[in-house]
């Protein structure tokens, strides 16, 4: 084989017989990953410094007298690495046996079981049996404050948690106390992690079951969970997440890496605010109000036919209120339906709070708008109204005498006669709030967790989410309901998929026309040319 001649920017490295060119300065561990070799490691995490202390990533490098930790130091040109040599395997097997000397092996009651790096590595490379017959060290359990519980005996002392709080959260709340085998992670003060909204990230990065979430404690086994890529709906940052569900119940949210948005992290506010996705007081069938004022369940076909008929004869223009938790596709479809019946003003209401920046990755913050798609709502021409608590501001809508649409907003604060003046009141939503009782048509819509669609985050990044739980009863995505309705009152075709619905958004906001569904990928894409909207709403 001819010797590759690397340019100054790349170096040639051979990992387990595979030679590849990598950029100069590439971490050895990353070079191995590029060669398809996953070198076991605990202390190293790509979002933090590498202390090289777990000694799990020891590999053999030719001409190096000792085994080399792959997590520190970059590759040099011509480096020949053996990750599976007898020496390297023996060293790593040794390290794993050392971990097991004091590990309680309480996997049957450990929340991490099934997604535990100690289990994974021991089963991959560890000894068949530990030889230790000595009594194990017992330290017990500690409440670290916030959502975090610490099982000291399971800890592998990788210090990721300490370094996360020091380097990323930049709020030193944890430290290693004592030394040697008596060393243990501890908090400085009684309040521990309480008050730091980034603290639950240490549960994610803990490679074992030492740091667990109180919220998730003993709730589900890792292997029973279904994991679906999604976007956190709880602020306009749009952290990439996984919705982890069991039996159509959302069990927890976990961050999903996106270097442009949230790196590896997410905040506790977003993470723990998921119970609303599991609400059972849902509208399960389309309801049509009869002459006596009762809501009568009806098939989708009959409902939408009647609604289309009613819309064709409607006068007085349209008004709408949308929830900023709705997807771009639903908002766009509503805007098109409104245009078809004469157009009109739309508003949205969004709860707002303080912005909390993650100091070690300042691109990421808990944003002021505590809903995923406030930016999308603005882009589709809905105006912000109401107070910072997400209520009020509906006076002009209440007085409207034409067609009134509500999309997703539960109207919990609206007076009992809300919409009573409207000639036609269409409520598309998840929950039958008091004000929705005046609606002529009540159309059951899915939450974002039950459908496919996109949100537009504060960076104008359009990001996809996928259905994670089944929709209750006859609930359908709003883009489908409104898309089919639009087809009934206009020449437009009905969208069959979220991609179809997305493709029509360009008709409402031309910028969306420049983004192809296929380009969104798993990490989204930024809308072109809408910078002028950057600071609206503040």
């Amino acid at each position, binding site marked *: 084989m001819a010797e590759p001649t690397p340019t100054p920017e790349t170096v040639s490295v051979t990992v387990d017989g595979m030679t590849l060119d990598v950029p100069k300065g590439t971490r050895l561990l990353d070079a191995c990953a590029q060669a398809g070799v996953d070198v076991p490691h605990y202390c190293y995490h790509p979002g933090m410094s590498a202390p090289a202390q777990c000694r799990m990533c020891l590999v053999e490098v030719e001409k190096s007298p000792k085994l080399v930790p792959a997590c520190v130091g970059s590759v040099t040109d011509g480096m020949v690495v053996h990750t599976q040599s007898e020496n390297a395997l*023996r060293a790593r097997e040794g*390290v794993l046996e050392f971990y097991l000397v004091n590990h309680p092996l309480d996997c049957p009651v450990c929340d991490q079981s099934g997604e535990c790096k100690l289990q994974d590595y021991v089963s991959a490379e560890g000894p068949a049996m530990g030889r230790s017959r*000595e009594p194990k060290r017992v330290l017990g359990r500690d409440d670290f404050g916030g959502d975090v519980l610490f099982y000291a005996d399971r800890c592998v002392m990788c210090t990721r948690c300490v370094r996360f709080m020091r380097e990323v959260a930049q709020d030193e709340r944890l430290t290693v106390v004592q*030394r040697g*085998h008596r060393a243990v992670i501890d908090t400085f003060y009684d309040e521990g992690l309480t008050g730091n909204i980034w603290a639950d990230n240490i549960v994610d990065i803990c490679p074992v079951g030492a740091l667990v979430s109180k919220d998730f404690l003993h709730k589900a086994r890792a292997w029973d969970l279904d994991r679906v890529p999604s976007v956190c709906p709880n602020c306009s940052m749009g952290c990439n997440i996984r919705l982890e569900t069991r039996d159509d119940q959302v069990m927890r949210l976990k961050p999903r890496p996106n270097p442009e948005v949230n790196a590896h992290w997410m905040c506790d506010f977003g993470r723990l605010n998921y119970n609303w996705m599991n609400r059972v007081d849902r509208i399960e069938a389309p309801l049509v109000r009869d002459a006596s004022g009762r809501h009568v369940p009806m098939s989708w076909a009959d409902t939408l036919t009647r609604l289309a008929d009613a819309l064709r004869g409607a006068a007085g223009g349209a008004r709408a209120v949308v929830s900023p938790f709705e997807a771009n596709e639903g908002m766009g479809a509503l805007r098109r339906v409104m245009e078809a019946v004469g157009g009109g003003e739309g508003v949205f209401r969004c709860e707002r709070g303080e912005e909390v920046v993650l100091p070690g990755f300042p691109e990421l913050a808990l944003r002021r708008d505590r809903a995923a798609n406030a930016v999308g709502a603005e882009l589709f021409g809905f105006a912000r109204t109401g107070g910072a608590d997400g209520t009020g501001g509906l006076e002009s809508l209440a007085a409207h005498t034409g067609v009134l649409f509500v999309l997703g907003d539960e109207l919990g604060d609206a007076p009992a006669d809300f919409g009573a003046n409207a000639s036609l009141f269409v409520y598309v939503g998840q929950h039958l709030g008091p004000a929705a009782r005046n609606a002529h048509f009540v159309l059951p819509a899915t939450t974002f967790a039950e459908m496919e669609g996109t949100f537009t985050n504060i960076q104008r990044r359009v990001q996809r989410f996928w259905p994670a739980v089944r929709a209750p009863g006859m609930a359908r995505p709003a883009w489908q309901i409104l898309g089919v309705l639009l087809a009934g009152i206009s020449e437009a075709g009905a969208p069959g998929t979220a991609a179809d619905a997305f493709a029509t958004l360009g008709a409402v906001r031309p910028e969306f026309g420049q983004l192809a569904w296929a380009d969104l990928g798993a990490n989204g894409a930024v809308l072109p040319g809408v910078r002028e909207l950057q600071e609206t709403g503040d």
Partner: protein
Amino acid sequence: MAYPYRHPAETLVISEHFGNPEARTLKGWEALGGYKPMRTALGLDRAEVVNIVKASGLRGRGGAGFPTGMKWSFMPKKEPGKPHFLVCNADESEPGTFKDRELMRWTPHALIEGCVVGAYAINAEHAYIYVRGEFFEAAQVMARAIEEAYAAGYLGKNVMGSGHDIDITLHIGAGAYICGEETGLLNSLEGRRGEPRVKPPYPAIAGAFRYPTAVNNVESLIAAAHIVHHGADWYKQWGTEKSVGTKLFCVSGHVKRPGNYEVPLGFNFREFIYDVCGGTPSGKPIKAVIPGGSSVPILTADELDIGMDYESMAAAGTMLGCGSVIVMDSGTNVVKQVRRMVDFYAHESCGQCTPCREGTAWASKILKRVERGRGTPDDLDTLLDISDKMSGKTICVLSDAAAAPIVSSIQKFRDDYLALMDAGQLAGAGGR
């Protein structure tokens, strides 16, 4: 016999004034010829100072034996805004070692001179002396001496009219073995946990406060001052070709006259133990000797006909280390001694690296069980295997240090282990 024991076979260079209270005071030290080496050094070019020490072949006396002049020559060129530091390692934490303590107790001004010479050589304006936490008296004596030296103009601005500023800060540790490891020491000095750093970068590039730093042992610095004053050839009159000069050896255990002895490197080890130190007080034969501190492999009585120098010790499969000799007579059960050492290392492991944190504690538990008579021969195989997995796999060499006595004791004193197991069987302690 009054302290310190002296023996005619000794060559007194750096320990000449041990036991002389006059040497502790500035006036006394000046009368004994003190502060001349420092004046000599400051009159030379910095590079010249480094070259003399390099030419002398002086090797670091802290244990690793790295050539001192070479270490100084690794310091980068001084850049503006990037201070250099000299750090004197006076942590002396290796079990069995007590030479630096005596150097500081009796000749504190010699260390001040050594620090000034070293600091001058590496273009540092600030030297730190990191003293082990338990060395109360030594630290007091040093503090007093530094105060005197400042008052006399030997420290501070424009030292001795040379135009150079050199400050010394005395830093007292909290008593951790690992803070004798140079990068653990630097972390501790900076107020961090005393945990060794991943190297590279080495201290010469990023040391104290991430600035270029040379870390030198007390004895090395004191010897270096003498060498700069008297010349490299003067120092080369002692020792062997590669192990030059004299060295302080700290002797403890079963000898009639324990203490510090300064002999030229290459001195016959058997003669040293039997003649200089007087052999065992009980008259029993010697069973085992640890030649260089608790972290080096143990020698048997048959292996003592070697020179006390770096090369001969290495050839015998052990290390000169920091020159702390621990002698055990035939009444000793080596297992108990090894258990005690491993216990020490388990206690002193900083806890960063898994093989050390878990390995030292595990080995210590096994050894305790064996000591109680509840061991089995396969425990020895386990110990050897653990030791191998602890050696050469960690950030610093603490776990290697813990493994060395385990391995050498099982290799050379297996009968001691088996005797405990048999005794346990007889006493009905068998099984696990």
